[in-house]
């Protein structure tokens, strides 16, 4: 069945997402005058700076940091999700609400709390920033993982045991492949915003941890080098779009975990 045309969300996407993105893309290809104003003529200077010897180590550090945060969240989140998926339904629902709490309460509040909890030796270091980011992003990993674990029919694991799989084989051959789409979704939801994170490196890093997010803000707001900042934002977008596209591909191919009943 072909549904009605989905104009309203399409308009939203174009107006609120595509247009601003294209504008930034166009700025990245302009020249600037010395006061920081964008001029009409084209230039690849922004891109040259954004892929130059100043930016590339920062890009590398941002991606490594995002990757480490993602890995930590996965390792911490998977056992949590498995335990929660076995809770009775009512309790599971309460847990989802509790775990969503950190997502919606003010990030600032937690950042300042953390700032004061962190040992002095970690303040202003990449390790400290990573720790706070992992704490902040764990719910983004946990919720899709929990949903994936819930969807796995418990009988399927029992069937694996019944058919001769040891508990480890049952995990490796059945449970893990069935929850992988959730893990991929969780990893995307952590990695993508982590790669562009600004607030945590800004406040926890105390100006000593420069990542893409802080670099872009600095260039935009303080140095007023808009072509450079725009090009860096585009690099970030590209670096993010590629893994996102891959992850959508992978999770799109993933099976529906609970086979439907017999249909007529």
């Amino acid at each position: 069945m072909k549904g009605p045309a989905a104009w309203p969300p399409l308009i939203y996407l174009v107006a609120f997402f595509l247009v601003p993105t294209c504008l930034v893309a166009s700025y990245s290809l302009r020249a600037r005058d010395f006061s920081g104003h964008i001029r009409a003529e084209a230039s690849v200077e922004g891109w040259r700076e954004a892929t130059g010897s100043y930016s590339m180590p920062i890009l590398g550090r941002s991606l490594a940091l995002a990757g480490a945060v993602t890995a930590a969240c996965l390792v911490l989140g998977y056992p949590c999700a498995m335990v929660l998926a076995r809770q009775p339904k009512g309790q599971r629902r309460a847990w989802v609400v509790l775990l969503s709490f950190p997502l919606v309460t003010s990030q600032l509040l937690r950042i300042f709390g953390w700032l004061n909890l962190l040992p002095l030796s970690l303040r202003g270091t990449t390790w400290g920033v990573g720790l706070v980011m992992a704490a902040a992003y764990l719910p983004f990993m946990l919720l899709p993982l929990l949903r994936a674990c819930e969807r796995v029919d418990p009988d399927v694991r029992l069937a694996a045991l019944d058919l001769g799989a040891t508990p480890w084989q049952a995990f490796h051959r059945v449970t893990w492949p069935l929850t992988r789409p959730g893990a991929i979704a969780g990893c995307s939801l952590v990695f993508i915003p982590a790669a562009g994170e600004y607030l945590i490196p800004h406040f926890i890093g105390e100006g000593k941890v420069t990542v893409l997010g802080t670099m872009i803000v600095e260039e935009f707001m303080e140095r007023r080098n808009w072509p450079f900042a725009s090009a860096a934002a585009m690099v970030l977008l590209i670096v993010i779009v590629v893994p996102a596209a891959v992850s959508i591909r992978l999770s799109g191919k993933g099976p529906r975990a609970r086979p439907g009943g017999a249909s007529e």
Partner: protein
Amino acid sequence: MGSSDRADGPAIELREVSKRFGGRAVIDGTSLTVGRGEFLALIGPSGSGKSTLLKLVSGIESPDSGRVLLSGQDVTEQPPYRRRVHTVFQNYALFPHLDVAGNVGFPLRMAGVDRRTRSARVAQALDWVELGPFASRRVEALSGGERQRVALARALVSESEAVLLDEPLSALDPHLRTQTLELLQDIQERLKVAYLYVTHDREEALRAAHRVGVLNQGRLEQVGPPEEIYRRPVSPFVASFIGPINWLSGERSEQGDGWVELSGGPRVPTTSRTLPAGPKLLLGVRPQDLWLGLEGFLGARIVGRQFSGTSVSLRLMSELGVPLTAELRADVETPPVGTDVRVSWSPEEAHIFGVAP
């Protein structure tokens, strides 16, 4: 993995097995034997412990007391993956991320069978269930009946001596059940594998099994061939569960054995076997064993009539105030609704039980 390592003894044996959940005995000191190559069906209402019994055999649950033996070997302490018995789950529990061949080959892969042998045996098992060309299909693309057969092939592929089936037809459309039951029967006969088959559908059990066991509240009330269960039930529960029946209450006639005095009504003859002890008696006659005519034990009025193709069922209100159902062949002329008739039955077809007062 041939048959050389098999010990002697019946395919499945339960000895005085009990299992409690939260203080309630779900299985209560049950013993049961499924012979080699035997098709044994367990029936009972929901909550009677049927599925738990299967889980005790497969090892998914372990008993609180009693022993479980497979082919004569005590496996009570073994985890499920060490027991050479496989289950067809009620919802099939196929692996949605594997294709049909991956599902069917799973037990062989876990047993370390090499790829080439595996694919030959998978192909063979798919042939048994008539799914030969489906090897590389996605499980999601299959119909309910096809999934059911994949689950069966997966349970059969390692050629263990026994397969457990947990209401295997209950998720299928009614019109598929008869033919799937026949397929299950054919395979059972061909492979000489033992089936322990759990169902709540008495007709499935009667049609297909060599022996039928009736479970009630964790206890096996009766085990025997289908016709024995149907014709000589040992309790009112079995008699009611195995098929529709009209119950009349009464007591032993004072005029000597062999007669039952119906409550508030006439005396009816019984066969000469001694009547059960209970002060109150319960007399059951199946709808198809009631005769309607001008003569008979009981007066009744026809109050309803339903045609079902092969038969006509008449609802009667007897002079005792008890409603009765009679089922007659559709090709016999039946009297219209409102007629007064007399009802009788052959004394051999009456099932008589004693009940506590």
